[in-house]
């Protein structure tokens, strides 16, 4: 189940990054930096937040998130979903 979610997340991120005209330069790994490396822009971050809400079917509390720390990699996002939602 977690593997399937990771694949959906990777697919979503790849599409977002490529639609923004950015070159992923190979694989999108579990520890590829998304935010600190600027692969995700402001709109990309909003789409990621919405993706997390859709995936978990729970609203995010924007007053309680730190995207740079919580969502910088696929591994971070998975950890966030597993432990904070």
């Amino acid at each position, binding site marked *: 189940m977690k593997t399937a979610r990771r694949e959906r997340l990777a697919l979503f991120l790849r599409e977002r990054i490529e639609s923004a005209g950015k070159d992923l330069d190979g694989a999108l790994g579990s520890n590829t930096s998304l935010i600190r490396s600027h692969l995700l822009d402001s709109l990309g*971050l909003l789409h990621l937040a919405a993706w997390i809400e859709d995936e978990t079917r729970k609203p995010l509390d924007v007053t309680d998130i730190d995207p740079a720390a919580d969502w910088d990699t696929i591994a971070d996002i998975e950890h966030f979903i597993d432990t904070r939602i």
Partner: protein
Amino acid sequence: MDYEILRYRPEFLPEIAALQRHLWGHSDTVNTAYFEWKHVHNPFVSEPLVYVARHAGRLVAMRAFWGMLWEVGESGEQVLIPSAADTVIVPEHRDRGLFARLTAAALADLARAGHAYVINLSASPATIVSCLASGWRSAGRLQVFVRRSAPRRFIRELRGVFRQHVPRLDRRLVDAPQSHRQVLDPFRAFDAAAGAHKDVELATQPRPDAMAAVAGYGPADRLRPVRNAQILAWRLSNPVARYRFVFHGGAQPDGHLVLHASRSGETVCIVDWRAANEAVQAKLLRAAIEAGRFARLSIWAATLSEQTRAMLHDHRFAIEVPSGVREGDDVLLVRATRDGTSHDEWKIAGLSLASLTSWRIDMIDSDAH
């Protein structure tokens, strides 16, 4: 792509007015008037704190900060805290890192000018998330308290039932406003009621001198906006805003309540509400509710006193929590202009900026109103 980040110059104004069609509205004339009011005639800054991105000879993005003056303590120590606003990026240049570049350039320039902190009271959903990813902190929700008229509440409940069964049809069937005329002119009932109240005056124009004289612009142990007649006269001359006023106390008012209508007309907000005592405060609120008969009346309640919040509950206001990030949220975002400090260290006169308990904030302190 190559972008040049520039500080505002007067020759940019026509292009900015056109750029802001993406955010403010379609009229360049109105956009120009709004820009001049907000940034050029802002009483707190000598020149606009506006930053633009230029690509291939044309402006493609803008990020601005409007001056806001706050004070704290019995002595009224004053500090200018620029407030982020007016972010716009033309569609073909979105997702290119421009928001981050513009913000970084602006923060560096503001730091050089001696501004230690910035805030944001009107962030869009995308701005909230990207700010939080780049060093801003949420001080907390401003807590939108909403009072819906009875038919509106019924429609809302009906909408919930429809959504369960015919999700595609619900918009057409139940989102229609209860009264088109009231939505087009949300102050129709309010204006018609002028003169009908013996205790209060319902007005279309502000009285800045009298309003500034009303005590109670926030407790001394919090950061509160500086108010005087000059500031109020400027603030309430926003060329795109529709305001109405309720005064109590005759020639020398001892309380006032300011209402603002959203551009769509579907929401009216209490943006400022001051009174010498609780009884006057209650009279102002009752008069606004009875005269306006607004479908949706809202107010930020997070920094109000417990007594005032209880008064709102008594008048059928209830907190409204957003259903998700797409809907956006009314939050106070705070940031130091320089990197390298923890938000625990962001303080003015010993007050933590990253905590809403340090602030007294009303909707009038946001450029969204």
